[in-house]
């Protein structure tokens, strides 16, 4: 049986089809080509032809044309459409014409840097020239660093290393900065939220240092498909960019199957195990001889599925070693061997975490099965892009888990298949993040009083730092004036510099397993909490708040803990407001909150029964952040009562629902946003729903919701109406025990009414 036969058999299998919420057939598309740009060095064209690249795809030609014309670009095309050439061609063209030229490549991970270095070295080999391409990251040996600084033509690194290792030592990199012509920023869609807001500031620092050495580099950005690649890349780089989005690479016919495992418990929204369903589906693809990649969200699931598939493979004559696992923690040589095996076909199936989602070259496979939604549409398409040769048939199966985000996607495939609704959101002006990078920038080079950082004057913040005795103002400049190294204290992956360190003290001397910001720590690392990390449960024995340490040990228990926050609104300063279409007012601005975790519940896994509770004694946390709010007219309560629905339940349900749906639209993690509903909120004195950024200062999510509110509100309505539960479940408005038994009807009533639709209750 081959893949085509398998697909037609599945199409005729009612037991399988019962769980399919959508079977989309994406038709094949032929290649569209463009000419080799005339300005390109003929040696480069000859080398490309010798490597089997006879012609460029139209998007590659367009990108190279724009870049050679001196413009910065953002290329937005799917996985494996040949975007690497879009930057390697102009970079090598410049290097051939002037070997003094330098380029900096930024990738979000070290593995990707390695892969791209090898790719660039292939070009060097094909050209037969002496050009140096090096990765520079935490793994680079000390004795190699000097040579890389002096003579690396292309330096491949990551934003963290640029931030801590390169910029504060820029005088050692004179060659690079003086001759910096191109900066490549790949996987731009990964730079969003807190991380993206930091990276935007790192790039501001990079441009500032380059300018000091007289260089003004062009930026070449690449992104997976999102709604706003040009806006996001523009915010990151601070440059006007030309968008290249018209993919000219060919593709074969692709079947995209949305598979939602059957419901086991409707009230609690629990479905059959996605791992078991994935296993069953993957076995059928293996038996059909399809080269298959299976994506799982955690390392533990990878190992579990690997074991299942090895067993299954034996039954159909697949030998040991032809099914492989791939995840962080594997040795680089092992990874390289697996990648090679996938390319040459000797590996028949691979089970991977999202480590293989990014652009590492493994060729194209026949089938991709995703055990769980990858978190964003962009990431999911990147995973799906692993299946699909340029010609011929491929299949993708997305197997949903019980999590609310998965259920939203499986229940609303149009959201996924239509034009990408996801907006990559960052806020480089977040004051905490901005201030951190101003310190780093002042360390690197004194600020002139009138200097701009990004697009804004920063003298006022610099003056503040003078008062704080971090900077010193003399002769019209702000000088770093402290005996510390500020980049060391700033992690690009966290908003606030202060974190709780999580220590597994079951091993002698203790082992640090992670860090967490203070706000999340109160909720997830309080005494007696069950903290889940890398699919392992840990019991929190002690949260030492003063020392910022949580001592945990691994356990296996059948419950999880859910802490209750008590949130009090202290201040509110509106920046913008406008009326909603029909009902109420919308606003966005800064809010001050006092946030306190008071109690927690123990909830049994599977049944979601409440099996215990406890008090939490932690200090109140004050937070200032940005919020969106939807203020309803006070009269709505009576109107709802007349229709037999309850405003209180409705607001609780709405908070749960929007806490799930809104992050999907703004590319946030569920934890990046908090939702809070109040029957009679201070300041508005009316029933109000707040959705606010969970990091201090905010990184733009709330403002984005304000802009996209109508779209999000309609999506939330569609989702709650489509949800198969009766009165509410964790996938929509929350379980009945939490939100009340009239939450689903009430939330739907409000959303419909606000959209000017019939608000009738079914």
């Amino acid at each position, binding site marked *: 049986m081959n893949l085509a036969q398998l697909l037609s058999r599945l199409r005729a299998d009612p037991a399988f089809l019962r769980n399919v919420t959508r079977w989309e057939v994406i038709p094949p598309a032929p290649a569209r080509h463009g000419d080799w740009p005339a300005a390109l060095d003929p040696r480069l064209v000859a080398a490309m032809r010798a490597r089997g690249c006879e012609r460029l795809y139209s998007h590659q030609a367009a990108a190279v044309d724009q870049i050679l014309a001196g413009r910065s670009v953002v290329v937005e095309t799917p996985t494996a459409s040949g975007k690497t050439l879009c930057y390697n061609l102009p970079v090598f063209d410049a290097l051939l014409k002037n070997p003094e030229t330098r380029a900096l490549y930024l990738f979000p991970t070290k593995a990707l840097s390695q892969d791209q270095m090898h790719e660039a070295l292939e070009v060097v080999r094909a050209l037969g020239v002496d050009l140096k391409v090096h990765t520079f990251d935490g793994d680079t040996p000390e004795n190699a660093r000097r040579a890389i600084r002096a003579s690396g033509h292309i330096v491949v690194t990551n934003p963290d290393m640029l931030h801590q290792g390169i910029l*504060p*030592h*820029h*005088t*050692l990199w*004179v060659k690079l900065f003086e001759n910096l012509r191109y900066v490549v920023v790949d996987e731009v869609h990964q730079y969003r939220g807190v991380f993206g807001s930091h990276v935007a500031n790192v790039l501001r620092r990079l441009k500032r240092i380059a300018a000091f050495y007289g260089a003004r580099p062009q930026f070449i950005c690449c992104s997976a498909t999102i709604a706003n690649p040009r806006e996001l890349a523009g915010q990151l780089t601070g440059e006007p960019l030309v968008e290249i989005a018209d993919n000219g690479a060919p593709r074969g016919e692709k079947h995209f199957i949305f598979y939602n495992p059957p419901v086991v418990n409707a009230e609690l929204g629990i479905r059959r195990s996605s791992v078991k369903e994935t296993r069953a589906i993957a076995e059928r693809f293996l038996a059909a001889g399809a080269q298959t990649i299976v994506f799982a969200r955690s390392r533990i699931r990878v190992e579990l599925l690997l074991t299942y598939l090895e067993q299954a493979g034996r039954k159909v004559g697949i030998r040991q070693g032809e099914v492989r696992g791939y995840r962080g923690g594997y040795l680089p040589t092992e990874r390289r061997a697996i990648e090679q095996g996938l390319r040459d076909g000797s590996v028949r199936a691979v089970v991977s975490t999202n480590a293989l989602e990014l652009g590492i070259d493994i060729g194209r496979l026949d089938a991709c099965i995703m055990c769980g939604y990858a978190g964003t549409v962009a990431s999911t398409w990147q995973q799906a892009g692993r299946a699909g040769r340029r010609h011929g048939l491929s299949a993708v199966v997305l197997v949903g888990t019980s999590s609310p985000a998965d259920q939203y996607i499986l229940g609303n495939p149009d959201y996924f298949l239509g034009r990408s609704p996801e907006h990559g959101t960052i806020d480089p002006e977040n*004051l*905490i993040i901005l*201030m951190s990078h101003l310190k780093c920038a*002042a*360390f*690197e*080079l*004194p600020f002139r009083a009138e200097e701009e950082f990004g697009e804004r004057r920063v003298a*006022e*913040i610099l003056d*503040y730092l003078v008062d*704080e*005795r971090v900077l*010193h103002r*003399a*002769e019209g*400049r702000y*000088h*770093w*004036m*402290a*005996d*510390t*190294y*500020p980049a*060391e204290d700033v992690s690009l992956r966290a908003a*606030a*510099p*202060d974190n709780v360190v999580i220590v597994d003290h079951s091993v002698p001397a203790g082992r640090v397993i992670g860090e967490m910001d203070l706000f999340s720590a109160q909720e997830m690392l309080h005494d007696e909490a069950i903290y889940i990390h890398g699919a392992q449960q840990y019991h929190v024995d002690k949260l030492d708040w*003063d*020392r*910022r340490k949580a001592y945990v040990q691994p356990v296996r228990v059948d419950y999880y803990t859910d802490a209750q926050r008590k949130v009090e609104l202290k201040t509110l*300063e509106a920046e913008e407001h406008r009326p909603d279409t029909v009902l109420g007012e919308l606003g966005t601005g*800064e809010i001050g909150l006092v946030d306190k975790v008071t109690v927690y519940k123990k909830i049994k896994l599977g049944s979601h029964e409440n099996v215990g509770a406890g008090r939490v004694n932690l200090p109140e946390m*004050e*937070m*200032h952040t940005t919020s969106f709010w939807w203020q309803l007219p006070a009269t709505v309560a009576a109107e709802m009562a007349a229709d037999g629905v309850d405003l209180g339940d409705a607001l609780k349900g709405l908070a749960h629902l929007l806490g799930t749906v809104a992050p999907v639209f703004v590319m946030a993690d569920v934890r990046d946003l908090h939702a809070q509903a109040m029957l009679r909120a201070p300041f508005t004195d009316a029933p109000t729903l707040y959705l606010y950024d969970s990091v*201090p*200062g905010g990184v733009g999510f709330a403002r984005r919701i304000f802009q996209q509110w109508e779209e999000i509100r309609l999506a939330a309505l569609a989702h709650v109406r489509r949800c198969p539960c009766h009165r509410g479940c964790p996938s929509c408005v929350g379980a009945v025990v939490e939100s009340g038994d009239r939450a689903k009807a009430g939330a739907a009533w409000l959303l419909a009414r606000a959209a000017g639709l019939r608000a009738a209750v079914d």
Partner: protein
Amino acid sequence: MDLRKRLARLDQLTRAPAPEPQRPGPAAVRGGAAPDRDLTAVLRDDLGLETRETGAGLLWLREDVRPSLRVPAVPLPSLAGILSAGARGARDLAWEDLLFLDTETTGLAGGTGTLPFLIGLGWWRDGCFTTQQLFLTGPGREGPLLAALAEQADRFGAVVTYNGAAFDLPLLRTRARLARRDDPCAGLPSWDLLPAARRLWGRGLPDCRQQTVERSICGRMRGGDDIEGALIPPVYLAYVRDGTAGLLPSVLRHNRRDVDGMALMLAAMAGEVAAIARGPAGAGDAWATAWSRALVCERRRERALAASWARCLGDAAAADLPLAGLLDAVRLLKRVADWRAVESLVQRGLARWPQDVRLNYEAAVLYEHRLGDPQRALLHATVLQDRGRQARLRARLGAT
């Protein structure tokens, strides 16, 4: 809302409540100086600085002569094998050709934001040692210092530092780049005394900090009035903010001691070079000294001398000679084919480390190939479980 208020609020929110590392209080840093005095008066009266007009602006400096620190009576010897390979030799250089340099900085972190605020220089002129200190009166005024340093550097044949190859010189290079100037010490061979001190004395000292070497080797005690290194950045930061001298006089004194301490140390190194060349004087040299001297001779490719120090190491081999020292001595004695001395050392080693692989290997090879004693060689080959060698030796024993 007021930006400043927001900043303060956010800053407070994210600042760690854990206690700051122990820093001296303002009183300790400021000392007794009265605030609000004219800066010029502070520089002149409290720090004893004077001004000099340079092309790059006004320079604040002071010079001190140390009549007691005479130029050494012996000619400057070759420090080949003692200084790191990168340092060019002392051929044709005299004591008067050396520029001693040490900086005081706003921190040890390195990178572009660390500021050297005091450049201490020293040299011998007319038989006496002179120190010159260039003081940075405030950030952004490095031009005159860097220019003066470049001018000085031009007049000398090498720059002598303590850990300067890794710290002071790169930092000055960084500052020059930031000020868009050439590296002031670019043309000057660099003599870093830290690796040299490690080579000569490191084996016998608890650490190789400059003050430890000064105390143990040169017999110089700095006394309790020497300011602790960790206090130096806050003293300067307080000066910059408040315009008061505070403990800066102590910092300047400390810096002068660092500079002339290097001169003392280099003189001691010259003495050591002479002692090495004279060869062992019989028993009495500690193993640490003999070991270091043997290795220096090896680096200087003086085989016979190295071997004689190695023999001395063997003689001195006290119960606490580390195995690495013993193996070094074995290596050096093998080079001069002194097999009996090698045997004596190896046997002494085996008495302490009977199962050690390297010693047994040395013994096996020695007895098989050099001393023609297959019986004893077999003993060690057995410990090594070296089957090839065992078979070969058994065959040889059977044949005889």
